[in-house]
């Protein structure tokens, strides 16, 4: 360990204060701090600090994403091979999926981190760890056959416009990963919807029936999957969104470690259930008749509410506000699904919409606190007068 440390200190020397490459220190620091927690000590405020830092928090989210990612990779191959017909093993499916998904992840990280590093050097602050999560989320919510250059452009758009333009990590209004998806969705709609995009290499095959369930419902077709299929996840969809089971595992990890807000998740499920149930009672079309509990396991709802809606920066920041925010995300998600067949999946737009309204929700929660205080002041003044 001390050997690596010595080597690192040697490499860092030109980046130290007053040296030639001082400006690029954030870049080298980003790598250094990944190997070692720095030897910085407290100088003001509390003399002792918690073991937790942003790196640890973000890595926890990355770990929680792993079950969904691994299953997503497998499912990519699985969907491909069942359309081909014939026999295949788990490994075949997994390798095929990895061939498709890993390049997307690499592109996302390379493009996104390059921009992050450039901004860190330009602004003279350290590289924030937030992109570790964002960079993984972006490929996970894309259709598998999207060209890599589109991934690159979406990433660049999200990082530049959704994040850095607002001042970087912690300042953004919209969730960057969802912004990337929304950008791709509206810029390249043919690659983001229809019945060909959800199965890898579907365009080269004949007679593919790779509609997502919500897509079929919107088109008024029969759905051939059971609730169990939808829960377990062997269905077409964006790469990592299909398996509610794996997402629940991730959700439990996030809740147990306290990294993501259980209030938002529970609120979302409540909101979506109520809305789905009300539509069931109405029952005017196929989407309305779709059982409310199926709404929870199908499409991107589970992934969105667990990994996207809980982004602490773009979500409501007060504990009461989180309940309201979560419930509204659930309600709007189902509402968009049912009322707007042009966008069969509503969770992306529901979360982005609520991202915009999260500060408003917080405003009313905080305002209530202020009013309590003002009332107390008025009472105190009355007493002394």
């Amino acid at each position, binding site marked *: 360990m001390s050997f690596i440390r010595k080597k690192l200190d040697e490499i860092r020397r030109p980046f130290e204060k007053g040296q030639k490459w001082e400006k690029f220190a954030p870049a080298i620091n980003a790598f250094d701090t990944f190997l070692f927690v720095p030897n910085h000590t407290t100088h003001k405020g509390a*003399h*002792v*600090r*918690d*073991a*937790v830092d942003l790196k640890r*928090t973000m890595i926890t989210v990355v770990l929680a994403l792993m079950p969904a990612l691994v299953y997503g990779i497998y499912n990519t191959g699985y969907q491909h091979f069942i359309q081909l017909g014939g026999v295949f093993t788990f490994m075949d499916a997994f390798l095929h999926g990895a061939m498709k998904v890993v390049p997307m992840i690499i592109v996302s990280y390379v493009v996104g981190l390059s921009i992050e590093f450039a901004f860190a050097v330009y602004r003279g602050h350290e590289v924030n760890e937030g992109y570790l999560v964002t960079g993984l989320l972006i490929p996970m919510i894309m259709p598998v056959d999207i060209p890599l250059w589109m991934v690159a452009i979406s990433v660049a758009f999200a990082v530049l416009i959704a994040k850095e333009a607002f001042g970087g990590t912690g300042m953004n209004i919209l969730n960057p990963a969802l912004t990337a998806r929304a950008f791709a969705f509206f810029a390249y709609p043919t690659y983001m919807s229809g019945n060909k995009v959800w199965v890898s290499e579907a365009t080269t095959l004949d007679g593919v029936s790779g509609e997502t369930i919500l897509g079929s419902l919107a088109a008024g077709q029969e759905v051939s999957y059971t609730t169990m299929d939808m829960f377990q996840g062997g269905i077409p969809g964006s790469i990592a969104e299909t398996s509610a089971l794996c997402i629940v595992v991730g959700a439990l990890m996030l809740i147990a470690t306290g990294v993501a*807000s259980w209030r938002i998740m529970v609120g979302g499920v409540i909101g979506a259930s109520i809305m789905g149930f009300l539509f069931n009672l109405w029952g005017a079309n196929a989407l309305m008749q779709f059982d409310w509990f199926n709404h929870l396991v199908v499409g991107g709802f589970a992934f969105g509410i667990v990994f996207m809606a809980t982004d602490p920066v773009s979500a409501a*920041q007060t504990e009461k506000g989180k309940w309201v925010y979560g419930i509204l995300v659930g309600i709007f998600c189902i509402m968009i699904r049912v009322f707007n067949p042009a966008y069969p999946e509503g969770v992306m737009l529901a979360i982005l919409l609520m991202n915009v309204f999260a500060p408003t929700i917080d405003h009313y929660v905080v305002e209530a606190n202020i009013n309590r205080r003002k009332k107390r002041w008025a009472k105190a003044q009355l007493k002394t007068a």
Partner: protein
Amino acid sequence: MSKGLRIRRGATINLKGKAEKIIQESAPSSTYALLPDDFFALTPKMHLKEGAKVQAGTPVFYSKSNPRIQFVSPVSGTLKAIVRGAKRKILEVIIEANGTDAITHKVGNPQSMKREEIVALLLESGCWPFIRQRPYNVIADPEVTPKAIYISTYATAPLDVDFEFFLKDQLEQFQKGIDVLNQLTSTIYLATDQNYRDGFAKIENVNQIAVSGPHPAGNESIIIHHTNPLAMHEKVWTIRPEDVVNIGLLFETGQYAAQRTIAVAGSPVGKPHYIKTKIGAQIAPLCEMTQVDTQTNLRYINGDVLTGRQTQPQSHIGFYNNLLSIIPEGNQYRMFGWMPFKDSNIPSLSKTSFSWLFNSAKEVDTNLNGEERALVVTGEMEKVFPMDIYPMQLLKACMTGDIEKMEFLGIYEVIPEDFGLIDFANTSKIEAQEIIKNAMYLMLKEVG
């Protein structure tokens, strides 16, 4: 007349090296010092020059904003040095101890004295700075009649002292001090530990509050907030338990006692225990008595590890603190320290560490355990801030210097110390106490 107050949010950090319940009389220290930095927003003006002879109780310097508030020598001797820092700011006023001369004031029965007489005596004797005023935690304004005086004997900070233990033989003086304070205001609140019903719980002529719960339950701010919260333009005063005894002693003997019992605590302390000495005593002799190896790389803190001020063995004990915390410096690298659940021996309130599973006392150093980042994680500050105040929103208002918002979000009800646990626990390593302190300077300048 006892009222219960149970605080739920917060965290008790269990550290190694808590002071054993032994009190040792300190050998007289060779030098004593007054540290103007102990007093928030004070500009000191010197009364005396270097080399002047002083008695115990001789005024040494006074407050520029109110010359009636003066700071007196805790011992008799010679004013040895006025240590100045940048811009000639006075850092330490060092007095070399010699002899036992003391100024004796004429005192009477507090119950038969007028309020102005008591105020004048406290100011003259040097006891006045014991009383601090909210908002801002500045030395009390003698012209003000506060709506209440708060005393908290429930100390919850890491390694903090047990007032019930070391003041158990001075309850009579404590009661006398309370009788004096009762002439200054209509209401005194005395917060005591729910589990001790013998010592302070027997004190009379106060509103008793039996407090329980984790840190910061013992902070005056929390107790004020939950019993009789501050409104705009209202003032309350606070005073530390041992200083109530000091006031009691003044009315008993007519002399400024300057008594200070110090618990020397922390993992590098060989024999952590209590030492009875005087305000401003030198730290090195205390280290020797408690078997601290001053040659090693240690952090000396006047106060607790969350809110105290860094000091050195050759420097002196602060004016208010009963605790001298000593912990190892943490200037070493830790490989892959960001991995969840690694290094669970470091205290952590986050569930990304197994620290919460082990309740045993932990060793802690001064490593930052990460780097400062933008605020990302939400909800963690509220967990350690048991007030009806939104701490993150308040901090953000302070960072932008939005005075109106700061007022409405509750700046008058807090002091930097209340944010100690937030400093400790927040993922982004935001310096919350520093932000609040700067905001208070701004408030003092703009609002007053």
